[in-house]
């Protein structure tokens, strides 16, 4: 297991590195003068030249990459153009909000999706199974921002059940959770569908296996068989998928933060794009991408650990 963990972690690091290289190379490959685009049409040539030097855009690509890596490793992601603070600080301030949103989204999708998938597998072919299937496909199809806006419209604006703006009062957990409900539901709903489908398929596969038949032959209750024997196996591929789902939810979080006017990394990036705060944009992209790679790594390692066959033979 240790060997696998090291290998997998090493791979994650390499992929992150390559991704960052791609990010920087984009600046060079894409035609046009980044300074012009980023500073807008009103900037004078002197300003652009100054910008280029400051951002290091006039150096050869390789040097840029090396410099960038050097800085990333020491935690320096550049300086926020607007506030003159380190980008890392700006991003780090907003990160907890986004993390809370994503975490809650995962809670929703697991809490709703896993039981739904289990139920559908046990009652395969029933009306509820078919309805659940249709529902799963539908929530996967519809984009999360549409769900976000419609739920804002229905539950906030029209019915007034939930607040429309913000993350709630600082320090007041209940209020913050209250503000989390709609946005996290919008973020997580699509994955309710995904999880339900995967859990259903995994469960059906496991329930057909010989050892389940044997457990039945020993008179174990259906509840024990479903949750202790079958689900424990079926949950393993689900964990892996959830890791990938987080990347999806990061995208969803951006929209949710904008729609519900919540603070977070998504809103930060969006505002920065609008105000041409290039270092913040790049810094935030680096952080979120790194976070995503970390999540998929964690998911793979957890899945490997959950299956004793994998855990001990690696």
């Amino acid at each position, binding site marked *: 297991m240790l060997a696998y963990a090291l290998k997998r972690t090493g791979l994650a690091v390499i992929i992150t590195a390559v991704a960052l290289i791609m990010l920087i190379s984009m600046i060079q490959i894409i035609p046009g003068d980044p300074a012009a685009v980023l500073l807008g049409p009103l900037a004078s040539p002197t300003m652009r030249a100054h910008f280029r030097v400051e951002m290091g855009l006039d150096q050869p690509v390789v040097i840029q990459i090396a410099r960038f890596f050097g800085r990333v490793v020491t935690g320096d992601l550049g300086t926020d153009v607007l506030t003159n603070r380190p980008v890392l600080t700006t991003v780090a301030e907003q990160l907890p909000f986004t993390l809370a949103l994503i975490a809650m989204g995962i809670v929703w999708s697991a809490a709703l999706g896993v039981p739904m998938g289990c139920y559908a597998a046990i009652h395969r072919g029933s009306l509820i199974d078919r309805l659940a299937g249709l529902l799963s496909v539908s929530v996967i199809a519809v984009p999360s921002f549409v769900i976000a806006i419609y739920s804002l419209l229905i539950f906030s604006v029209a019915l007034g059940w939930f607040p429309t703006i913000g993350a709630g009062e600082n320090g007041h957990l209940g209020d913050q959770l209250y503000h989390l409900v709609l946005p996290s539901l919008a973020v997580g709903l699509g994955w309710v569908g995904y999880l339900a489908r995967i859990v259903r398929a995994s469960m059906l596969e496991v329930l057909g296996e*010989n050892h389940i038949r044997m457990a039945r032959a*020993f008179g174990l209750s259906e509840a024990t068989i479903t949750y202790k024997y079958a689900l424990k196996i079926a949950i393993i591929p689900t964990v892996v998928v959830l890791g990938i789902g987080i990347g999806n939810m990061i995208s969803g979080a951006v929209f949710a933060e904008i729609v519900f006017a919540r603070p977070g990394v998504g809103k930060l990036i969006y505002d920065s794009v609008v105000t041409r705060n290039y270092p913040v944009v790049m810094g935030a992209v680096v952080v979120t991408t790194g976070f995503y790679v970390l999540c998929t790594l964690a998911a793979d390692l957890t899945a490997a650990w959950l299956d004793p066959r994998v855990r001990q033979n690696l």
Partner: protein
Amino acid sequence: MKQDAPAPVLAVRDLSVDFRTARGRLRALRHVSLDVPRGGIMGLVGESGCGKSTLISAVLGLVAANGEVTSGEIRFDGDDIVAMSPERLRALRGDRLSVVFQDPMTALNPVLSIGTQMTAIQYRTGRSRDERQARAAEMLARVKIPDPKARLAQYPHQFSGGMRQRICIAMALLAEPDLLIADEPTTALDATLEVQVINLLKELQAEFGCSVLFISHHLGVVAELCDQVAVMYAGEVVERGSVRDIFHHAAHPYARKLLECDPGRIRTATRNLPSIPGELPDLAALPQGCIFRARCDRSVERCASEAPAEREVGEGHLAACHVATGAG
């Protein structure tokens, strides 16, 4: 059966099971009757597809969703399993009835430790966790797994096939059953392991005194292990009796052929192994009359029109054949 013999622990009477498939109605078991003697070992022999597994599933009440019992009864210690409620049936399983399945490689849950699985099946005994673990370790020692306490924490994939099968036997005996059903327990094992497992079963049966229903297509093993034997062909029991009767005075033509063709019996070197000509009948489109007629070398006219009922060809020796006699 002798008048003063104790009631059989399992008495199957006239059991028929059909399956609804895309090809039509498959009549997998037809009017099957057999008795498993209390405290004895009954062997059930037959080729693949003869219905042995279906019979086991019916006894356990685990027939597949597309199957149904269309007639007959399965009396376990007097109570009819066919008519039983699911709750009562579940209460029997793992308590008075237990099973050893054919394939040890897939019979155990791969993500739960052996200890967890062995203690889980003791859930209705009311014993504490420590007691259950102690019993499990004890049983592992009985089936000759070395260092049982430590091995309880291990997972199935850390055991060889032969050891896994022994674990399954240990689990089946943990239940202290009245009837142990062994569904081809040695088919997936090589010859040396087979000998070990059979000897183990003999010892344990003598020690615990449970009845055993032993299914196999390996005639030599059945001859060595069992007291009573039933022979199945294409969904019917064609002959049953003591192991002596069957192996020395087989009455039904199929049983005779089966014994003749057993590679273990061949004395002289030969190029062509004997076999029974013809093929298994299609269970969805059964012929009229005797099920074995098409491949039988002793059939008469009556065999084509009338399916033979079981009749006594010797004391305690029954065969479903028009022409069979008890004499060799």
